[in-house]
């Protein structure tokens, strides 16, 4: 595969592969690299992943998860190095505790700061961000420094009323960010609980004589622990309140923003959402009335047809009788 038939526009696949393999073979050339395969793969992700946008769906998800797999190697790299090199007489559980405590401390630190976490705990936060990204005029995800800028809102001028509404918008945005921070903090605590689950399961495997023989098995185990911890969290009342608080806060901000936009559109004598809603509601009500009237008319027509039938029957019967009501002769 080369630049012409690569799935990534303008991306020379063959050249990238060649450079990647050169980097990997450099490991065998005795050059000192603290984490050589990771460095080689970083090159890969630097070239491949930026070419894949969120719009590329399955492709993007596959590459991101592959990166997560290799991230496992990085995240647990020190742990793995010590664990595989420890002697049978060494206290492997103490080694495990040392590294997992460090990972857990990372999550607890994040929970204090209310900051979003990094891979491989990124999934619920990514998913959350995607869930809410269309709810807001702007994406709620932070910049590289973890900061949320205040969204730019259109402003036409300095009327006191409009300025007050802008101030209120800023208050609503701040309220939303506070809720989001609370959510990130709780997610970090859940991450810490996932680490505890991981510890318990590894210890259980050790007691049961089961082995972790591949990076993929470790990835699957970590994923399972994360899913379990997150699943337990989702069913708590506290999470339901937190989730609703974030959603309601963001929608409230969006509603206020819409109102400000409507004010501007109204000042420019342009159609507004409220105006269109009113038209649609009236149109809908008219359709219902027309359908209802049509159904009543159909019923009335059926009733009239029945009455005509009955009248015709009575006429026929009447024609067979004389003036005194008795049947005519021969009838």
């Amino acid at each position, binding site marked *: 595969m080369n630049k012409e038939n690569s799935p990534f526009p303008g991306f020379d696949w063959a050249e990238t592969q060649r450079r990647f393999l050169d980097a990997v073979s450099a490991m065998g050339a005795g050059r000192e690299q603290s984490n050589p395969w990771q460095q080689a793969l970083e090159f890969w992700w630097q070239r491949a992943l930026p070419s894949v946008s969120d719009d590329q769906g399955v492709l993007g998800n596959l590459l991101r998860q592959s990166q997560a797999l290799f991230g496992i190697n990085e995240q647990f790299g020190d742990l793995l190095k010590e664990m595989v090199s420890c002697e049978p007489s060494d206290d492997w559980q103490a080694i495990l505790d040392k590294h997992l405590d460090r990972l857990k401390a990372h999550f607890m630190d994040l929970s204090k700061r209310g900051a979003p976490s990094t891979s491989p705990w990124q999934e619920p936060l990514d998913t959350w961000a995607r869930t809410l990204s269309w709810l807001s005029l702007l994406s709620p995800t932070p910049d590289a420094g973890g900061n949320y800028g205040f969204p730019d809102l259109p402003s036409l001028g300095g009327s006191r009323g409009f300025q007050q509404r802008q101030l209120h918008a800023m208050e609503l945005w701040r309220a939303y960010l506070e809720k989001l921070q609370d959510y990130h903090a709780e997610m970090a605590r859940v991450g810490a609980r996932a680490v505890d689950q991981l510890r318990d399961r590894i210890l259980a495997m050790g007691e049961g004589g089961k082995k972790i023989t591949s990076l993929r098995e470790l990835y699957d185990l970590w994923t399972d622990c994360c899913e379990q911890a997150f699943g337990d969290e989702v069913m708590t009342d506290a999470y339901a309140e937190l989730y*609703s608080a974030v959603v309601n806060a963001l929608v409230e901000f969006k509603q206020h923003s819409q109102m400000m936009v409507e004010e501007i559109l109204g000042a420019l004598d342009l159609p507004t959402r409220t105006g269109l809603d009113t038209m649609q509601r009236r149109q809908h009500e008219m359709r219902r009335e027309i359908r209802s009237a049509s159904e009543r008319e159909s019923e009335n027509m059926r009733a009239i047809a029945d009455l005509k039938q009955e009248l015709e029957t009575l006429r026929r019967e009447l024609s067979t009788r004389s003036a005194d009501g008795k049947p005519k002769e021969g009838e």
Partner: protein
Amino acid sequence: MNPFALDAESVTREILEFNSRLAGVLGRLGNLNGVEPGASEKEAVYREDKLVLYRFKPRTQAQHPVPVLIVYALVNRPYMADLENGRSLVQGMLDAGLDVYLIDWGYPDQADRYLTLDDYINGYLDRCVDQVRQHATADRINLLGICQGGTFSLCYTALHPEKVHNLITTVTPVDFQTPNDALSHLVRNVDIDLCVDTLGNIPGDLLTWTFLMLKPFRLMGQKYMDLSDILDDPARAANFMRMEKWIFDSPDQAGEAYRQFIRDFYQQNALIKGSVQIGDQSVDLQNITVPVLNIYARDDHLVPPDAAKALGGCIGSQDYTEMEFPGGHIGIYVSTRAQEMLPPAIADWVKQRG
């Protein structure tokens, strides 16, 4: 005993092998063909607004005289029931000699903002039922509801019992507040009026991400790692892509219908309490006296078994049958086991009741 049996060499080998596989996968993904869903031939027999009523082409010489109308949910697209050859509830039912119809609700837009549950159930659904009765020359029909479509079917049968012969519900929520219902738990405190008043129609993407958020690590992460294991097999790869298409092909939800469904069914649990109003009519599940087959999925995390099984204690029918499927909410339609279990069971049950 130390459970870690990895070493630097094995990890390196694993990464290199994975990387090679990934490179091959990326090429094959771009060359996948034939991933459009839909296995069975069908014709449109009625259209109204965005809705299309389909009749599937029979696959047997003779069909059971009472037709089956499949009522799908508003959420997601109905081709899940007819995903591909060999993984199609519709195909299985056709092969069992049933005459199958299906409502495709379409993709609501802003013009549908004020559609209510009354419009859907006493309007669209009732007119579709009349169309099927006319088309199949049947006084009454069999209704088969899927998930929310099952809830609609229950409401419809309670309000129009004279038009329904038998009722089949599959993974259908009846009690929306059982202890292990994560979805219900999530929306309990959401200000649904604020959401609908602000957003109008509810974007399909919101619902997609909400469902995925219930199991984010598995559904947004690990699943794609599994993909790298199956892409060598074009058929399995195509299956995966069809499912992906369905998962991310969620229609927007008409605002007023969504408001009522979430508020009345999820937040107030009104169906099982007997206080749902559709239009100016109350829905009393005791009015359902026709035979009912209630199929639920044992491992369903969206409609827990208890949420569906609650139906048994609510209806007036003397002929009520439950059936457990050993799988999940989606597996009940697309898994191999489902194809072996469900269509024959449904067909047998229907035929036994005329």
